């Protein structure tokens, strides 16, 4: 009877852990900021990330459609305010993305 050599374990390349929705610098930045606070205001995100209002809106739409953030619109006095809150799915995606980037970095070193 012939012994069958066990197949070598194939470890997926770290890039397979990168999520297209999250793997974009500004969207990653949005998730990083919102993960650090209970919620972040549109103006703070725009200023900190150096984005135009239109660009930030588009990134927020992508993340909201992916279920990674919730967007809450309200008023502070008469001023309209938009607050962004990360969801558990967004937190998990951020953690996975950072883990994949860290693993990628480790392989290259």
């Amino acid at each position, binding site marked *: 009877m012939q012994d069958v050599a066990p197949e070598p374990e194939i470890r997926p390349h770290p890039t397979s852990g990168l999520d297209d929705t999250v793997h974009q610098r500004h969207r990653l930045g949005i998730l990083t900021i919102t993960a650090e606070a209970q919620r972040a205001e549109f103006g703070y995100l725009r200023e900190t990330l*150096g984005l135009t209002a239109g660009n930030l809106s588009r990134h927020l739409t992508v993340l909201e459609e992916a279920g990674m953030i919730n967007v809450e619109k309200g008023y502070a006095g008469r001023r309209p305010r938009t607050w962004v809150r990360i969801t558990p799915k967004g937190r998990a995606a951020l953690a996975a993305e950072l883990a994949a980037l860290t693993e990628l970095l480790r392989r290259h070193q």
Partner: protein
Amino acid sequence: MSGEGNGAASGREPDDSGKTGQPEDPAGLLDEMRALRRRTRTARHAYWFPLVLFGLLTCLSAPFYVQWGNLSQAGATAGGGVPFAMLGGFPAITTQRYLGYFWLVALLGGLLLTLLWYRWNARRVGLQTPARGYIVTTAVLTVLAVVLPPLSQVSWLRFLSLLWPGDLVIRGTFPFVIIAVGLWVLAWAERSRALTVIAAVYTATALLAALYNVENVVFRLGWNPSGWQWRLTTLPNVLLPALVLLIAGTAAFAAQRHRAGAQA
């Protein structure tokens, strides 16, 4: 990684990420996210306010700790029918009868002001700190401190008296322990190492004030009270925790102003 090349919306977005010349490699991206996280965390820190507020409230409580009555009657009414004994200690031993009322109002009022402060700061900065855990924890502990003594008088609830050891409450400094527990929760919410250190130092001070007569240390340092000065000998137990909060709060405020100035 292209700035706009990976997302579902990539085809529609003008590439404004390239303007800044930000790094594309994983190491650069990770460094960038770490810096962003640090900046966000620093920007939303607002804990100097509750530190200063509760430091001032502790100072305001000092007159209630002065022994205005006849010192020779000390201990005469220990424990019997004391209102809010967990907050106000045992009157005629070290504190005034109304100290419990003061701390009930001060703790709940201080929490309300802190809640309003965090809401105002969130609107001002654009980042909201999850301070609800701090508010709820401190409020629940305050309410428990009010209801536990009367409940433990009920015959079938006497076991509740185990939850309020007399040594911690007799000096009327148990509110400091409540404030200390709240600070640990706030340090977690603020993700602040500095506040964790402050909470540790304050907890040690609060426990010292609750379990030991700090005036003994002051006596050894050379204070030799005479006459009416004996009425003030309980104050070191109050002023030491107050001092810790006020110094820490002022330092945190100064550090925050400095960082805000550096970023601007």
